[in-house]
């Protein structure tokens, strides 16, 4: 009883710099895992999504099932998704990675497809008339014109992957999510929870800024039009 009272009266601040300093290496380790999972998930998702989007643009028959399937995958809650994958890959970060790739994949397929469908047919026709082969047409015409939609997709996928990674706590590999649930389990230790939350939000915003900057560098013509 006395012990319980002591716990109740102990200060439990929302943020505590000394927590961050004392646990710096732990925080960095979880941050590293978070970044690694996010980058890998978005990269793998993009590598799989691009050919799928190209195929789906080419045939109407494929576009339907691809979009229907992506709607279903969106709708599966992340907690259930990780639980489904767990029997195959066990208590490893692979479980989290596979789930995150699935989600980033469906976001990217939709945006890549929308970008490719937005390339005007006249422009492609003109390029073909000028003797562009399929590969050159894709790299020099489709890609630059679809780039804004591609980058928009990458930004959404990255930001939501950063947020989703936290759910990986189910299998013990949630990156900064480990701090959030770890603090909850350590007698509602607010400083740890808030540190994990702020880390996630800052990471997401930083990643978004980096991608926005990349987009600016990759599309110098967009700035010229505005100026």
């Amino acid at each position: 009883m006395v012990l319980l009272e002591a716990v109740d009266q102990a200060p439990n601040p929302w943020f505590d710099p000394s927590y961050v300093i004392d646990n710096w290496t732990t925080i960095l380790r979880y941050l590293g895992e978070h970044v690694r999972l996010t980058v890998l998930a978005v990269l793998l998702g993009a590598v799989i999504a691009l050919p799928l989007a190209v195929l789906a643009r080419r045939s109407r028959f494929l576009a339907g099932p691809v979009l229907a399937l992506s709607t279903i995958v969106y709708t599966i809650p992340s907690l259930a998704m990780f639980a489904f994958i767990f029997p195959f890959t066990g208590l490893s970060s692979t479980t989290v990675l596979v789930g995150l790739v699935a989600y980033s994949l469906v976001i990217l397929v939709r945006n890549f497809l929308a970008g490719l469908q937005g390339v005007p047919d006249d422009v492609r026709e003109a390029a073909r008339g000028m003797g562009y082969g399929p590969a050159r047409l894709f790299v020099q015409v489709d890609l630059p014109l679809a780039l804004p939609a591609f980058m928009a997709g990458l930004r959404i996928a990255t930001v939501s992957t950063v947020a989703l990674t936290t759910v990986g706590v189910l299998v013990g590999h949630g990156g900064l999510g480990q701090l959030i649930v770890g603090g909850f389990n350590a007698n509602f230790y607010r400083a740890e929870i808030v540190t994990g939350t702020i880390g996630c939000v800052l990471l997401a915003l930083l990643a978004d800024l980096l991608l926005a900057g990349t987009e600016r560098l990759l599309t110098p013509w967009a700035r010229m039009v505005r100026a």
Partner: protein
Amino acid sequence: MNQFGDAIVYLNDPYNWTRPGGIFDLLVEHLAISAVAVLAAMVVALPAGVALGTSGRGGGLIVGLSNVSRAVPTLALLTLFAVSPIGFGNPATAIALAVFAIPPILTNTYVGFRGVDADVQEAARAMGMSGGQVIRRVDLPLAMPLVMTGIRTATVQVVATAGLAALVGGGGLGQIINLGFGQQNYGEMIAGAVLVAALALLTELTLVALAWAVTPGAKRFPWTATRRPDAAGVAMTPEPTAAGVPL
């Protein structure tokens, strides 16, 4: 994959459904939390969306809000409300979920009311409609598809993420996943995952049917949105706003 067989056995046992604290009890709890969260979000977001959309102001604020809300993990907000003075449990879960349900409803309502053709509004006013009549009888039917998209997105998101509350002491169907995992009863865990996923998919289908029923004019299912090019031969753009974010 022995565990998937165990999951079927678990789901086949009627006692698991009907016992106190069983699947039915958790399902009712899950749906009650979700309903409260969605209704609370609608009470806040629908009037705000209509007001901002008809006046055409606050667009930047709404875009910023929906972007920031995407960056905040649902799990983090659920945990923060659980350790706040509200205390963990269903009220804290409902509040956290309502916060996440506001941006999709607000954004879609704003975009819907903003996009109403000014000529149509002017014609309605010229026919003697008052401001309120224009909103109710002209703007609302025209904005209905997007308003319903917002409500559908928010509802599916709430139902899906309500399961996460189980990780931080909340109720609902997520408890089956968390409990099964904690007890290394992986059949039970997968059974819980099946239930949570099925509930989310059913919610999506129900809301699509509801949107179909209440939307006047030409009917169209959301997943055919990018499939059929419209009259001008331009592919329809995918749904705007927060619709495309996994849960």
